[in-house]
């Protein structure tokens, strides 16, 4: 087994991206993701890659678009305010069917907000990553090890389905150190016959474009894209669950919040409470079916987020009234504690269990 090393989430993700075959990074410094930039600025020149500090997040994401058009694995990273700027490029890449990796190490908004951890960009990532009818793959790591594992998956799926992928982390995951293992997993390669690499007078020209002025053609393009989305929702949902079989109360949480909830759930189990945890690893596609099934056996669902209630709306839709849905959230960079979550679970189950 490869050695366990202690690494910061941001640096682990950066190294994983390199190992996943990314040689083109375009970014702009912003707390709390800057270590990704710093790490790649050290590493890329030594392995023949590109680290380019752009003049803005707008420029950075459009450089990613250019590199992705040319068929290479390209990425950018930022934190919440910077992601707002990137939404332009994200929409264009969706519309141009380009794969890439975007990392959002979330901080608090709106506006400059604060630099503390937050999950308040859930809606932006899963509902409107850019203008137009669109989706991107959204992964929510909960450990530094997942900051290592997910980039491989994200690049691969992004290429297979020809769409951008986002890793939606947060300040806690970016800044914390945990032991990680880098396996010798080699990056999967996908053919890119659509890339604009120069036709060498051997094939018809390739056009990477999101512009379709003919409504019939554009509708067809969007419809085809949504057919792919349906396939993704069918095949690519990732979750982690614990104590779900007999759970009367299912806690749903993602990212750093899920690890906090896991502590609370473990503690509650020792106290005899029938609680379980469902952690969506992919936020889009969202585990609708699994939640619907769980709602058949559980009476209550408690969603915990570092925001004012965003994923809870997807939970409500999935559960469709089959269980009572509750919400507990903190905002502004405040991090819920396991004690807070435990108190919430006791309040919900109070009448039914000691």
């Amino acid at each position, binding site marked *: 087994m490869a050695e366990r090393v202690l690494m910061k989430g941001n640096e682990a993700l950066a190294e994983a991206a390199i190992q996943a075959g990314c040689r083109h990074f375009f970014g702009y410094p912003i707390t709390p993701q800057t270590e990704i930039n710093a790490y790649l600025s050290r590493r890329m020149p030594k392995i023949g890659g590109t680290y380019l500090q752009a003049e803005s997040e707008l420029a950075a994401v459009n450089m990613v678009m250019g590199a992705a058009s040319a068929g290479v694995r390209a990425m950018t990273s930022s934190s919440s305010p910077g992601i707002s700027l990137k939404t332009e490029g994200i929409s264009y890449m969706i519309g141009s069917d380009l794969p890439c990796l975007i990392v959002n190490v979330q901080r608090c908004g709106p506006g400059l907000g604060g630099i503390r951890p937050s999950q308040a960009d859930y809606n932006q990532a899963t509902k409107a990553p850019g203008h137009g009818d669109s989706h991107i793959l959204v992964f929510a790591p909960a450990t530094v090890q997942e900051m290592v594992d997910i980039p491989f998956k994200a690049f691969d799926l992004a290429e297979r389905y020809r769409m951008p992928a986002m890793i939606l982390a947060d300040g806690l995951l970016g800044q914390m150190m945990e032991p990680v293992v880098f396996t010798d997993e080699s990056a999967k390669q996908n053919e890119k016959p659509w890339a604009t*690499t120069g036709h060498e007078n051997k094939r018809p020209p390739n056009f990477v474009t999101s512009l379709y002025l003919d409504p019939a053609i554009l509708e067809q393009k969007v419809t085809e894209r949504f057919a792919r989305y349906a396939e993704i929702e069918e095949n690519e949902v990732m979750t982690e669950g614990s104590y779900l079989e007999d759970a009367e109360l299912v806690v749903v949480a993602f990212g750093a919040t899920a690890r906090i909830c896991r502590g609370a759930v473990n503690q509650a189990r020792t106290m005899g409470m029938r609680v379980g945890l469902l952690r969506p690893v992919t936020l889009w596609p969202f585990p609708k079916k699994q939640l619907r099934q769980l709602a058949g056996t559980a009476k209550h669902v408690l969603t915990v987020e570092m925001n004012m209630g965003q994923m809870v709306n997807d939970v409500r839709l999935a559960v469709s009234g089959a269980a009572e849905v509750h919400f507990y959230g903190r905002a502004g960079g405040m991090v819920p504690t396991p004690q807070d979550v435990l108190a919430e679970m006791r309040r919900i189950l109070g009448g039914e269990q000691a």
Partner: protein
Amino acid sequence: MSVVYKKSPVLTDAPMHYCPGCGHGIIHKLVAETLVELDVVGKTIFVASVGCSALAYNYFKLDMVQSPHGRALAVATGVKRALPNHVVFTYQGDGDLAAIGTAETIHAAARGEKLSVVFVNNAIYGMTGGQMAPTTMPGQVTQTSPYGRSTETAGYPVRVCEMLATLDGVAYAERVAVDTVPHIRKAKAAIKKAFSNQLAGRGFSIVEVLSQCPTNWALPPLQAIEWLKENMIPYYPLGVFKDTAAEGGE
């Protein structure tokens, strides 16, 4: 009979959507001829922008990327970094390059990206129907400067070549026009130089082309050419503003 003139093989047979008397058709032809003459068609990537030339992908048999408005030079930077031995160029209008994309323009130039830029300056927004551009001249009437551009409220135009020539990353900046045959010949030479520079690994090369927009200037094509001569060339003098190769440097 011998063929004395034919359409460039890089151009498609699609009828162009450009208005009668528009300069884009001429400039497209100059770019197409240049790529053939330099024998780089197979390894060229055209980064299109947003403006009238957004539909250029219909007209060129080249691999093309359609970039967001103003971001062509960021997109082109990404393409070139991924394919450093290919030929990458942008074709941008004044709104794209000098208004919404000013930051991308200046920084690509400052970084000395090895790109060629064809910058079409017609002093107006063409595609959206004749609004004030960053290059609209003082007093010039447009849809959004109906009383003539007031320097009091709308400030002054940007002279792109003069501005970019101050940056160390720029290898070549020249302003040309497509109003007369001699000027068109000069424009061709400038465009060819911008691409040759890229092949030679010199830095950022930009050719600013003063071009007619009869429709939005509300003038017949011939009068539009006169208007360009009388109004634009005095304000935007033609010439070489920077040429590191000629100066003996790289």
